[in-house]
């Protein structure tokens, strides 16, 4: 019974205040569409920057006769390998023998290896860290010199630094964008709701005077907010689906999808939007109405 009265009251005021209902729904729609867009783009860029960071590798090259006067021994190589394998920052460790290195070289730049009489390439460890940011630390911790048999440690210093810096900027920008958008859409929605409640403050006054409890007044308003929030965010999701299915392939048609950079799953994105839409709608009206209930 109580529920029936509540929904009947909410429905009648939604219908009676069609323009403010529309305004609130549109505000939620715009806010949630932008938020969805930035979540989609942002998570894709984040995942891309992670993907790039994963390409950061540390190479530990061992001595060869050419470079240090004598080859590093198997024992030395294994000792360094054990050391690297025990580091917590390291994800995978590959041994690249000089024969393998030559094969890779031949595949990549055949003309360079054509005239070789012997294999000048060293044995090496290829170290992939768990986090791209750790390459420098790992590299610095490996001792070089005749004692360890390590000729040099290489981690593409300049490139690594640049990639890390760019990735960092992207992360901050994404976070900022999401925070700003959330705040902006919350304010926008609160403002719209306040306008709609303000235009009905007389009604609220009357309700209170005939002895309506605060919840009796608030209930229908919150339900209205909920409905606006739901409708707005559903529409936003529909628009995003359209954008994803129609606009995106047209723009990014020739970017191959094989890289492991992916946006946050669309379902998750949609759920986040719906959740925020509902919350903003209901909380927005619930909080805003407080001021007008003090009669």
């Amino acid at each position, binding site marked *: *019974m109580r529920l029936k009265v509540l929904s009947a009251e909410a429905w009648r005021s939604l219908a009676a205040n069609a323009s403010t209902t529309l305004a609130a729904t549109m505000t939620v729609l715009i806010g949630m569409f932008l938020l969805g867009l930035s979540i989609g783009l942002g998570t894709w860029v984040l995942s891309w920057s992670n993907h790039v960071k994963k390409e950061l590798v540390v190479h530990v090259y061992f001595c060869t006769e050419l470079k240090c006067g004598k080859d590093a021994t198997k024992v030395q190589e294994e000792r360094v390998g054990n050391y690297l394998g025990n580091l917590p920052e390291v994800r995978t460790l590959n041994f690249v023998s000089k024969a393998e290195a030559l094969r890779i070289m031949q595949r990549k730049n055949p003309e360079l290896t054509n005239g070789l009489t012997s294999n000048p390439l060293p044995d090496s460890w290829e170290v992939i860290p768990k986090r791209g940011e750790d390459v420098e630390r790992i590299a610095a911790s490996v001792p070089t010199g005749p004692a360890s048999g390590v000729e040099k440690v290489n981690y593409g210093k300049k490139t690594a630094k640049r990639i890390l810096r760019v990735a960092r900027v992207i992360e901050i920008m994404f976070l900022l964008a999401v925070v700003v958008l959330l705040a902006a859409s919350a304010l926008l929605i609160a403002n719209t709701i306040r306008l709609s409640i303000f235009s009905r403050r007389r009604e609220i006054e009357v*309700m209170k005077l005939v002895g309506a409890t*605060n919840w009796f007044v608030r209930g229908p308003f919150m339900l209205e907010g909920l409905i606006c929030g739901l409708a707005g965010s559903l529409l936003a999701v529909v628009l995003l689906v359209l954008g994803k299915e129609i606009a995106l392939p047209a723009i990014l048609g020739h970017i191959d999808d094989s890289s492991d950079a992916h946006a946050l799953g669309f379902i998750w994105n949609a759920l986040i939007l719906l959740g925020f839409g509902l919350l903003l709608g209901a909380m927005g009206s619930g909080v805003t109405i407080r001021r007008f209930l003090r009669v």
Partner: protein
Amino acid sequence: MQDLDVTPTETPLDTLTTNGVEPGVSVPHAGAMIVFEGVTKVYEPDVTALQSVSFLIEKGEFVFIVGASGSGKSTLIRLLLKELEPTDGKIIVGGRDLTRLKRGKVPMLRRNIGCVFQDFKLLSDRTAFENVAYALRVQGEGRNAIRRKVPEVLALVGLADKMSSYPDQLSGGEQQRVSIARAVVNHPPLLVCDEPTGNLDPDTSVGIMQLLYRINRSGTTILMVTHDREMVDKMRRRVIALELGRLARDERRGGYESE
């Protein structure tokens, strides 16, 4: 419109003293509907709206509150409805001490006080029927009770044929009748009217007063703030006059001005 019945009925209540209760002294007010004990209301920062006002209104009385604008009449009404808290003093309505009443209980208080205002305060997007029904719905009354009680009370105020009209399709007098119907549909023991005839022409006002008089005779206490000199002089009921926030006069069968 027939002449207003202005002969006050003698009631035993009239023999009781109603001329103020000494502030601070707690008397058991068994039959009292409203008790004001030394009530003072100061609006921040230093506007004194009411200055230690005391009076007692018995159950079933019909009381006019008169006074110039700014004399504290509206403040008095708002204190009764607990829209405002008194700065000092004690207000008892229907045996309940308002200063001790918790905020959560205020809706219950208001369900026991019918309110009629100069500007009717009707919801413009609802029919006469719906406006009256709202007061019942607020209390969780069922659909059947609403279907039974609303036409009954609208017939009582003479609007049986205007139930599905919206406020802007009704005349001022008719709107005020709707608002009176809304105020009494719960059978509250107390009806508070804030210049109910302030916006109405004299003929219509007489009709409204007759209606209020009838409601009063059925046992409802009525407290009416008014500027309608003629009406007060004609009815010869109890008059409480306020002047600059002080109780200036409390006469059992007073006129608008002291004689």
